[in-house]
């Protein structure tokens, strides 16, 4: 049904004789079309991730409504400054990742590798701070389970805190379960991201991604920014919205 006439109507004879870049797969018409298809696929994956985290956000919303006093008490045990620093670290890592994509676009191998390594370092810094926070939870017996202690919530040491009845104090376990589920899944995404980043750096050393074909870097950038966005919502929900004033 497709005839050469159509091609001549467009005034371009770019059929089989056209010089394609090596990375253009034969089922795509143009590099731009291939790029768009790859981005489209990546976004569909990210939308499934939105649904995955969305379920946990939904659970948080409803439980916060049910056990509001317990969620306020739980929220105030978190270190707001560590949370703020971690948010800043993640935003920095998003900037370095964006700059890595830009470097790949401009075919600068050295700066691509530098920015990817910076992104790894910042990602590890985030996980380091997170592990300090997790360690504190274990020390304070704030990890849901048999070692969980409601002592701090029934007899709070903070003068601004409201003492909870034992049954409501038990519900702080729901808060900490959601805290660990949400930040834990986020941290898992970070760990997966850093693992992929290491592979990307190794390949970039071999000259990959700076030869004009950078779909992998671009799509990984989308993933990394998505993980950043999840934290942008986790931070206010877990750390900020119920502080004592």
């Amino acid at each position, binding site marked *: 049904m497709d005839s050469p006439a159509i091609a001549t109507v467009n005034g371009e004879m770019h059929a089989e004789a056209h010089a394609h870049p090596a990375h253009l797969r034969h089922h795509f*018409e143009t590099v731009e079309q291939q790029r768009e298809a790859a981005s*489209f696929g990546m976004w569909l994956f990210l939308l499934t991730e939105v649904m995955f985290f969305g379920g946990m956000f939904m659970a948080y919303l409803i439980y916060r409504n049910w056990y509001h006093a317990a969620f306020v008490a739980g929220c105030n045990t978190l270190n707001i400054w560590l949370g703020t620093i971690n948010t800043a670290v993640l935003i920095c890592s998003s900037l370095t990742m964006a700059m890595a994509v830009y470097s790949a676009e401009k075919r600068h191998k050295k700066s691509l590798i530098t920015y990817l390594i910076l992104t790894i370092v910042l990602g590890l810094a985030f996980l380091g701070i997170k592990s300090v926070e997790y360690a504190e939870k274990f020390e304070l017996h704030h990890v849901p389970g048999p070692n969980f202690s409601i002592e701090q919530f029934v007899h709070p040491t903070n003068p601004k805190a409201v003492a909870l009845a034992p049954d409501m104090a038990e519900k702080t376990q729901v808060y900490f379960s959601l805290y660990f589920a949400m930040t834990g899944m986020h941290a898992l995404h970070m760990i997966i991201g850093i693992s992929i980043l290491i592979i990307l750096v190794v390949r970039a050393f071999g000259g990959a991604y700076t030869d004009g074909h950078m779909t992998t870097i671009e799509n990984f950038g989308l993933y990394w920014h998505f993980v950043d966005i999840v934290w942008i919502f986790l931070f206010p929900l877990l750390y900020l919205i119920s502080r004592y004033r």
Partner: protein
Amino acid sequence: MSQHGATDLEHQEHHVVGPKVYLLIFFALMICTGLTTWVAFIDLGVLNPVIALAIACFKASLVVLFFMHIHYSSKLLKLTVASGLFMFLVLITMTLSDYISRAWGLW
């Protein structure tokens, strides 16, 4: 026979987002982070979560639009992102309406 002609509209040049835009967005995100932490210490009652989430949504929009290039992307990608967010809101709304109405009349 290779197919061409039909997709020639997609031949537009790819938009490269530069360091200037990235730095601008980066500073905006940092300022918003400082702002949201600062507001958390001020008692605004019911407005505290609203403001915190409004700032979070603003930050997320900046990331999606500029770091993730949606501002410069094709309509297909814009529509994909928008439909995903719409679907998410539909799911939240339907879950909440079920949750709110389940014990209707029992209180």
